[in-house]
């Protein structure tokens, strides 16, 4: 009886520990802790890479981001007990092979399942943020965009336009220093729109894009597609 179990958990956490699934997840968690004495409820970089190694997930693969999303890592390489146990309990998984399976399953769904990708994408920003920071240094953002916007993840390119390359080239040219949360999130919306309409027909100056994206569009019209934008000619 699931609802009875949930109620029991909230009413009395000690019985929840008795839940065999959670119990096994807790003991798995305990195995990878870096410093059980001082940080009994945390796995740090060392433990995380060990765990991912066991799961055969490369650290620089998007699979690592999917894993971090499932266990709600607060920052790169960090896992909390709460995030780990809740995250896996929610999908009813407690064995390493099943964990690996779920990550692989989601990995192959990234290009097609918007919700899965969006969750991983948005969580990546939080994950990558340095403690106390509100923005991501550009180099960091670029690394993660590369990971997220190329296969096997979401391939941000169309037959005529290497969107990701343009986007990164533009940010370098503009000497952008940092990326804030709004720009990070809006970049995904923008990417999705460009995949649907490569000609940027959805864009206009009045629409609500962050100004960096507006400037990107202007930059494209000037640098990449000169002569295509009829409007710019008419102004004079």
């Amino acid at each position: 009886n699931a609802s009875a179990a949930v109620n029991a958990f909230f009413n009395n956490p000690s019985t929840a520990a008795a839940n065999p699934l959670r119990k096994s997840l807790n003991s798995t968690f305990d195995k990878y802790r870096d410093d059980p004495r001082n940080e009994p409820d945390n796995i740090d970089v060392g433990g995380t890479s060990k765990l991912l190694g066991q799961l055969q997930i490369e650290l620089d693969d998007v699979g690592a981001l999917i894993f971090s999303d499932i266990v709600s890592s607060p920052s790169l390489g960090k896992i909390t007990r709460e995030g780990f146990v809740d995250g896996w309990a929610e999908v009813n998984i407690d064995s390493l092979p099943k964990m690996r399976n779920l990550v692989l399953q989601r990995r192959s769904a990234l290009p097609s399942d918007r919700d899965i990708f969006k969750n991983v994408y948005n969580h990546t920003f939080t994950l990558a943020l340095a403690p106390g920071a509100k923005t991501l240094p550009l180099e960091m953002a670029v690394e993660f965009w590369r990971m997220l916007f190329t296969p096997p993840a979401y391939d941000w390119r169309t037959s005529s336009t290497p969107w990701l390359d343009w986007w990164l080239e533009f940010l370098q040219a503009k000497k952008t220093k940092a990326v804030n949360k709004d720009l990070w999130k809006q970049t995904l919306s923008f990417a999705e729109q460009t995949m649907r309409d490569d000609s940027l027909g959805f864009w206009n100056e009045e629409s609500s894009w962050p100004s960096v994206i507006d400037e990107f569009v202007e930059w494209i019209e000037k640098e990449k597609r000169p002569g295509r934008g009829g409007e710019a000619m008419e102004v004079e």
Partner: protein
Amino acid sequence: MAPQPRPDIVTNALATMQKAAAVPPPPMPTSKDDINGTWRFLEWGVDRIMFSLKEGVDLRTYMSLYTSIHNFCTAQKAAGPTTNTLHSTHRGAHLLGEELYHRLNTYLKQHLAGVHAEMVKHSDEALLTYYIEQWNRYTTAGTYNNHLFRYLNRHWVKREMDEGKKDIFDIYTLHLVRWKEDMFGSTQNAVMDAVLRLVEKQRNGETIEQSKVKQVVDSFVALGIDESDSTKTNLDVYRQYFERPFITATGKYYEAESKAFLGENSVVDYMKKAERRLDEEKERVPLYLLAEIMQPLMKCCESALIAAHCQLMRDEFQILLDNDREEDMARMYKLLSRIAEGLDPLRTRFEAHVRRAGHLAVEKVAEAGDNLDPKAYVDALLEVHTQYSGLVQTAFTGESEFVRSLDNACREYVNRNKVCQKNSARSPELLAKHADNVLKRSTKATEEDDMEKMLNQVMTVFKYIEDKDVFQKFYSRTLAKRLVNGTSASGDAETSMISKLKDASGFEYTNKLQRMFQDMQTSKDLNSSYDEWCKDTFDADDRKEGVDAYYQILGTGFWPLQPANTPFVAPATIVKTYERFQNFYNSKHGGRKLTWLWHLCKGEIRANYAKMNKVPYTFQVSTYQMAILLLFNDSDTVTYDDIASSTMLAKETLDPSLGIMLKAKVIIASPEGAASQSGTTYSLNYGFKNKKLKVNLNVAIKAEQKQEAEDTHKTIEEDRKMLMQSAIVRIMKSRKTMKHAVLVGETIQQIKNRFSPKVADIKKCIDILIEKEYLERLEGDDLGYLA
């Protein structure tokens, strides 16, 4: 009781009864119901009325005629059986009345057949003459007959009509119906042709008998019998048979005429002609046409005379504009204003023309580049505006749409011309500088009226300035200078200007400016109470030690003044004086911090070592120069390094300050002509000579001025960002959530009377506010306010 004829008819009959009748009347019918006898008697009377009305009928004969109708109509009632019901009596009267009615109807038909036969022999004016003559005779007779047959009208005809018979009319209307059916149908064409030829003659300049047309019109109107109710009339007949052909002919006439005229004459002459023609047609209506024709007639003339040639006129408009042909433009305006959308193309051309003129005027003065004289620039802007606002008033009757076109054009060339190509803030900057020059005391005094006029001119341009915030910045800086330096030409003019700005842009716009005036007044009061305080606190010797000084206390938030960008150690003499004041001030206003703006202070210094006719020279100097010169009290020669170290002045300030004094030969550099640098020594020039006793050494430093202008521009950018952000927050605070595009639109609305914000700039501000978590993105294009 026997019915009585109307008295006025009797009078008329009496008046003419002296004349003997040509044909003696037949005998009165003996039997009341004898229709033949009755009609024979009546026909004689009707004939007389028709043909020899002037000869009259004596009263007795008239009475007999009337009585015979009465008798005939009542015959059966008198002879009928007493058992007759009311109904059968009624029918009887009907039958007998009907006979008389039809006899008269037949009589009229025969009469008109004769008239018609005669009429076709005539044409043109003769036809009109004949038509009118016959019409008048016939309708006059109709009136008389109507009275004569009154008994029939009142009883038999009334009943027939009451019963809804549409083909029975009262006797007068019967006359009209017969005319309409037996005459009108077959003759109106010829009559109308004759009328139209007559009118055409008049249009061609001949004199015509207008009354003929007028009578034809009246006859057509009279024939307009309402088919559903014959007692009423309408204008159907007139509209169809007179108005329509009249309008068609008019249109044709003017189409042909205008085409021919334009073939041989200029558009300007044509417009005069068209104007005259329109007036003529308008005058024609009251002379002999029905007032109702005015509207269709004017419309027809306007279409043929104006609309058909409006393209030609519009093309001519540019030429008229180029040659300042005010009167012709006024005429064109009047003509084209009469047709729908006639003026729109003129307004467009006018706007473009004014814009061009404005750009040209600016280009002429723009050659001066950075040295552009503000007055020359403002004069160039004004000249074009004055010329064309004058034209709008005189030629275009000050029409609001033309005013708008003028305003559009002016806004365009005032804000986007060659001078502001690189920097759109140049226009307001130059205008503010010009205003400063106007308000500043100069060598030649300005009359009060002239001053007011010049200020109004500034306001004329101000109205068009989009970057009103830039003007405000520069104006407040120059105003601050005028006030601090006491260089205003007139306090009244200053106040007047402030109130003009306030009227134009609101209280908030001038708030700080007004506070500056207040500070000046407060300072004045403060100085007098300080003097009092000094008298009370120090004895005379003590007071002498200080320097005579006047203090201005300026509120930091209201004055656009920055602390000097050089350190400075004030000379000891001054320190003593200002510390005394500071004590006084702190005792009055504890907790306030006084910052000395040394770069704005000045003073006078007397050179006891150099005299003209035993009177020492006085130098007007800046505080910095004062500090430098005071060093010479201790030593006749001072080194550059000494000056630098004791005043602490930065090189950028020190060097120009020395430079002016060197140039004026107050001090002499050694070695001669040495640059301002370490190693150079300066000595006091004991042989100083000047034409004036008072020598002004406090000359503004060029580099400083330029720096100031740059700083001003920089603060403008910052201020604008703040203004946009606070507008966005203000709007979002009240709306909580809002569509992105709507927010941008409202922000522009709120700000545009200060400057014209770019959409991209507003979006940047929105980005900043999202990052600062004042706003958040919601679903769709919505933004939310985070309290």
